[in-house]
C-alpha cells in the first residue's frame, strides 16, 4: 500500500504541509518495501484546479491513501472516485507521521 503525505520538504525530517493542492512535495511511503520517495508537486504552479492536478499526480503514482491537513471538494471527488483513503494529522515530521500510521494512530478523515 502507498501512502502520500503532503510535505514542506523532501527529507524524512521535513514537516507535513497542511495544504494539499499547493504543497511543495509529496512524500510517498510504500508499506511493503518501507521505502520513502519524495516527488515535487507540479500542481503548485497551476493557475486553477491545483487540487485536481495534485490528485491526478498521486493517482499516477498508484497511491492508496493520502495524509494532509485539508482537502478541497474537487480533490476529494477525484480521490474518492478512485477509492483513495484519507488521513489527517497536525503539524509533525514526516517520519513521525509514518510511525503514527504503523501504530494505527493516524486520524481517519471522512469527506
Amino acid at each position: 500500500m502507498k501512502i502520500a503525505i503532503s510535505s514542506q520538504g523532501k527529507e524524512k525530517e521535513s514537516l507535513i504541509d497542511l495544504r494539499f493542492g499547493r504543497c511543495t512535495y509529496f512524500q510517498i511511503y510504500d508499506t511493503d518495501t518501507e521505502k520513502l520517495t519524495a516527488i515535487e508537486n507540479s500542481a503548485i504552479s497551476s493557475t486553477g484546479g491545483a487540487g485536481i492536478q495534485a490528485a491526478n499526480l498521486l493517482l499516477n503514482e498508484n497511491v492508496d491513501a493520502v495524509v494532509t491537513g485539508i482537502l478541497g471538494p474537487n480533490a476529494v471527488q477525484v480521490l474518492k472516485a478512485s477509492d483513495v483513503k484519507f488521513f489527517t494529522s497536525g503539524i509533525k515530521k514526516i517520519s513521525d507521521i509514518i510511525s503514527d500510521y504503523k501504530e494505527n494512530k493516524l486520524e481517519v478523515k471522512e469527506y
Partner: protein
Amino acid sequence: MNIVVLSGKGGTGKTLVSTNLAVYMGANYIDTDVEEPNGFIFLKSVVEETAYVEIDIPDIDKQKCVMCFKCVDFCEFNALAKTKQGVLVFDKLCHSCGGCKIVCPVDAVNYKKKNIGIIEKGKANHIKCIRGVLNIGEPIAVPIIKEILNNLDDTLNMIDASPGTSCNVVKTLEYADAAILVTEPTKFGLHDLGRAVKLVEDLNIPFGVVINRITEENNIIKDYCKENKIHILAEIKHDKNVAVLYSKGELLLEDDRYKEIFESLSNKVKENLLCK
C-alpha cells in the same frame, strides 16, 4: 467608437465616471463588470430584453470512453480528471476550448450547454443600456463579455469594465478605440494604475487618466502622469456630497455643481482620445 473605462484598483470610480459620461455624451452605456454590474442602479435603467448566455461543457460518453485519459492530459485548466471510474468533468474550470473533443481517439466527447448568466438590454435617460450578469458562483465571465461586445451598435459606446487587469479587462480592451483610466491618489491606486497603463500601452490604445477623490492639489498620481507624459482628463475633488449622492444611487449630473466636471471631461475625451 468604443471607450473603455477601467481602473486597475477597484472602487476608484469607474461606474461614477462611465454612467455620468455616457449620459452626458449620449453614448450607449455598456456594463461589462459582469461579476457586480451596478451601473443600472444609477441610470435607473428599464430592462426591455433579457438573453441567456450559454457555454459548451464536455459530456463524456462512458460507453465509448476507453479511459486513455488523453483529454485529461490535454486540458490546461484541470477541468478534466482521471479516476478509476473514468473521466471526471469539473464544469467551473472548463474554458470551452474544444481541445478534449479533438484529442479523443474514440469520439467519446460530446458537449452540453450550460447557462452562465444573462445579458440585459434596456433604456435610461434617453440612452441605450446593456449589462451582463454572471450567475453567482460562476468563475468564468469572458463568454458573457464577448457576447455583449460582439454585438455593439456602431455608435459611441461607454464601456464600464471590471476592476483589475485580468482576462475580463483584457477581453474588454480588445474592443476599445480609447480608454479612460480612473484612479485615486493612494499608493494602492498608483500601483494598480501602473498595471492598467502597461496594459493599454501594450495594446496600443490611446488613453487618459481621471483622478478621483483628490484631497491635495499635488498628489502621487499627478506626479506619475507628469513623469510619464500621460494626459489627465479630469480631477474630481474628494467631496462628501459626491459620496452622499452616490450612496443614494443618483447621477452627479443631476446636481449642477458637478455637471461641469463631465462637460470638461467630455471635451477632453473628444480632443485627446477620439480624434486619434
